[in-house]
C-alpha cells in the first residue's frame, strides 16, 4: 500500500475524497454493472451473468477493439515522431526562452476540443479551405476527399493530444544532464550513437508517458471518429457510447469500459516499469527523500 494511503496527510483529504467519490466509486459501479443483465428499457436487471464479458470477445466487438488499437497506435507513433524533435528543440533552446516555446506548444490545447476538431472539418472537407486553395492554385481535378477517412481521424487525434506528448518528452529531456551527452562524445561516440545509446534511453520514461497518454486517450475517444470519421469508423469509445445512450445496454457498455480500464492499467504499469528501470540506470544525482 502506498505511503500516502497508510498515513494520509489531512491536507490531502479533500482531494482523496474527491478521487474516491468520483473516480473509485464510479469505476466500482461500472465493474458491478458489467456482471448483470440489461433491463429491456435500459437500466440494470440484477441477475448475475458473465455474458457481457463473453460478448466482448465476439468477433464483431473484438474487431472494433483491433480497429481502435490500430488507429490509436498509428496516432501514437506519428505523435511521438513529431513530438520528440519538437521537445528536443525546445529543451536545447536558451533556458529563458523555453517557457514561451512550451506555451506556444500547449496553446491550442486551451481552446475547446470540439472547436479544434471542427476546425479540421473546415480545413479538410471537399469544399473546404485546402481544396479551395488547391483550386485557386490551378488544380482542376476532383476535390480531394480527405475528411471522413481514417487519416482524418488520426490527424485529429494527433493534433489534439500532441501538446501532452511534447510536454511529457520535454520534462524528461530537460532533466537530462547535458554533461552525459558530452561525456559520451568525449569517449568517442558520434551524435547518432550518443542519441541512440544515451539520450533516447534516458528519456524513454517521457516517451512512454507521452505515448501511453495519447494511446489511452485515443483508443477511448468517440468524438473524433464521429466528427472527422463521419461515423464511418467505429472505435471502442463509440461502441461504449452507443451501448449506454442508444442501445440501452449498460451492462455491456460497462464490460467494454472495464476492458478499456484494464488495458489502461496494463499500459500504465508497463510505463511505470520503464520509468523505474530508467531511474535505476541514472546516476544518483541526489538522494530522494524516501
Amino acid at each position, binding site marked *: 500500500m502506498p505511503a500516502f494511503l497508510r498515513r494520509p496527510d489531512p*491536507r490531502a*483529504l*479533500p482531494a482523496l*475524497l*474527491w478521487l474516491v*467519490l468520483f473516480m473509485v466509486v464510479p469505476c466500482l459501479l461500472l465493474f458491478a454493472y458489467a456482471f448483470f443483465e*440489461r*433491463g*429491456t*428499457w*435500459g*437500466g440494470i436487471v440484477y441477475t448475475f451473468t458473465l455474458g457481457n464479458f463473453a460478448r466482448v470477445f465476439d468477433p*464483431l*466487438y473484438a*474487431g*472494433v477493439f483491433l*480497429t481502435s488499437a490500430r488507429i490509436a497506435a498509428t496516432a501514437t507513433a506519428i505523435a511521438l515522431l513529431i513530438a520528440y524533435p519538437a521537445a528536443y528543440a525546445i529543451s536545447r533552446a536558451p533556458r529563458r526562452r523555453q517557457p514561451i516555446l512550451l506555451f506556444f506548444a500547449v496553446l491550442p490545447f486551451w481552446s475547446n476540443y470540439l472547436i479544434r476538431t471542427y476546425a479540421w472539418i473546415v480545413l479538410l*472537407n*471537399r*469544399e473546404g479551405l485546402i481544396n479551395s486553395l488547391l483550386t485557386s492554385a490551378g488544380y482542376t481535378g476532383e476535390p480531394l*476527399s480527405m*475528411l*471522413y477517412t481514417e487519416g482524418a481521424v488520426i490527424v485529429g487525434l494527433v493534433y489534439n493530444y500532441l501538446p501532452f506528448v511534447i510536454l511529457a518528452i520535454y520534462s524528461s529531456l530537460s532533466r537530462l544532464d547535458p554533461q552525459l551527452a558530452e561525456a559520451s562524445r568525449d569517449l568517442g561516440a558520434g551524435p547518432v550513437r550518443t542519441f541512440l545509446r544515451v539520450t533516447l534511453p534516458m528519456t524513454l520514461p517521457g516517451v512512454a508517458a507521452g505515448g501511453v497518454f495519447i494511446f489511452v486517450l485515443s483508443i477511448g475517444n468517440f468524438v473524433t471518429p464521429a466528427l472527422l*470519421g*463521419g*461515423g*464511418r469508423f*467505429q472505435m471502442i469509445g*463509440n*461502441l461504449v457510447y*452507443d*451501448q449506454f*445512450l*442508444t*442501445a*440501452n*445496454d449498460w451492462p455491456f457498455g460497462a464490460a467494454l469500459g472495464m476492458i478499456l480500464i484494464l488495458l489502461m492499467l496494463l499500459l500504465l504499469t508497463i510505463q511505470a516499469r520503464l520509468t523505474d528501470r530508467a531511474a535505476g540506470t541514472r546516476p544518483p544525482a541526489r538522494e530522494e527523500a524516501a
Partner: protein
Amino acid sequence: MTQRITPSLPPLAPALAAIALIATAPATLAADLVISNWDGYMAPDIAETFKAATGLEVEIVNHATNEEIMGKLMASQGAGYDVVFVSSPFAEILNKQGLLAPIDHAAVPNIANLYPEAAALAYDPGATFAVPYAWGTTGLCYRSDLVEGTPDSWSALLQPADALKGKVTMLATDRWLMAAGLLAQGSSVNEADQAKIDAARDLLIEAKKSLLAYDDTTFYAKLVSGEASLVHAWDGWCNYGIAENADIRFAVPKEGSDLWVDTMVVMANGENRENAMKFLNFILDAGNHAWAAQNILYKVPNKAAMESLDPALLEQFPNMAITPAELAGYELMRDLGDAQPAFSRAVSEIKAAN
C-alpha cells in the same frame, strides 16, 4: 443547499456539498411545474408567457436525447418531472412502465385542436397518455441542381448513381438508419424478423461504400456547402437547408417512409399534475403551437395552428404542406421491445464494417 455552507466549515465541506447535490433529485425549488424538453424545441419565452397566462412558475430543464431523459425517468420513476417531451416509442415505454398520468381531456380543452389523425395514433388511440407535439417523416433531401431527376426511391440513397457516390449521407440513429434498409426491401420499420433485419443490414453495409458520412446533425449544411448532393433527412431538418438554398428539395421515397411523432407526456409521480394539464392546454393553443411550425419548421399536429400559418411558409417549405392523411399513410415508428438488441447489433455491424 448551498446557503448552509459557511466559510468556517472544514475543508471537507466542498466535497460534502457535492455529495449533497448529487443525492438531491432535480431541484424543484419553488416551481409550480417542471418540464423537460429538447433545447430550443419551445418558444424561448415560454416560461414568461405561461406565467402571464396562468400565474404559474415553470422550471425548464433540457435533455439532449430521448435516451438521456429515459435514463433519468427510469431512475427516479418520473419523480421530479411533470411534463416531459419524448418521441412516441419512448412514451409507449413509459406508459408500459406505468409512469404516465392519464391525460385529463376535460382539463385540456384545446386538445380539440388536434387533427383527428393525431388523436388516433396506433400507440395511443384517443391521446390517453401522450399528446402529439410535432410529427413528420423521413426522406431524401437533395440539391436539385446537382441530382438528376427526382430521387424517388430509397435505392437512390442506398445504390446511388455514379455521380453521387461519396456525396450522400445517412442518418446514424439506429431506428432511421435501419428504416432506410428495411423500407427499401419492403420490410416494416418496426421489423422483428431476424432474417429481414439481417438482409437490411447487408444492404446498408453495401451502401456504406458510397457514403460520404453518417450525419444526424449537419447533413443539411453539407448540402448547402456542396459537400453532399443527396442526404437522408428528417423533413423538418431539410427545411433548414431549403432556407439557405432554394435548390434544395425534399422527397419521400415511393416505397414509403416512417411517421415519427414527438409527444408531451405527464409523469404520474410528478407533484403538479393539474398544472401539467394547464401547460398542455397552453401549448395546444393554436397561436402557441404554431410557434413550433414557424420557427422549427416542423409540422405540428394541431389543425388550428397549421391553418393559421402564412401560406408563403408552406410554399417555401413544401414538406410543411404534407397532409395529416398522407402522414397517417406512413408507417408509425413503434417501440421495438425485444427486437431492440437485434437492431443494436445490426447497427454495430454496419458501423464496424469496412
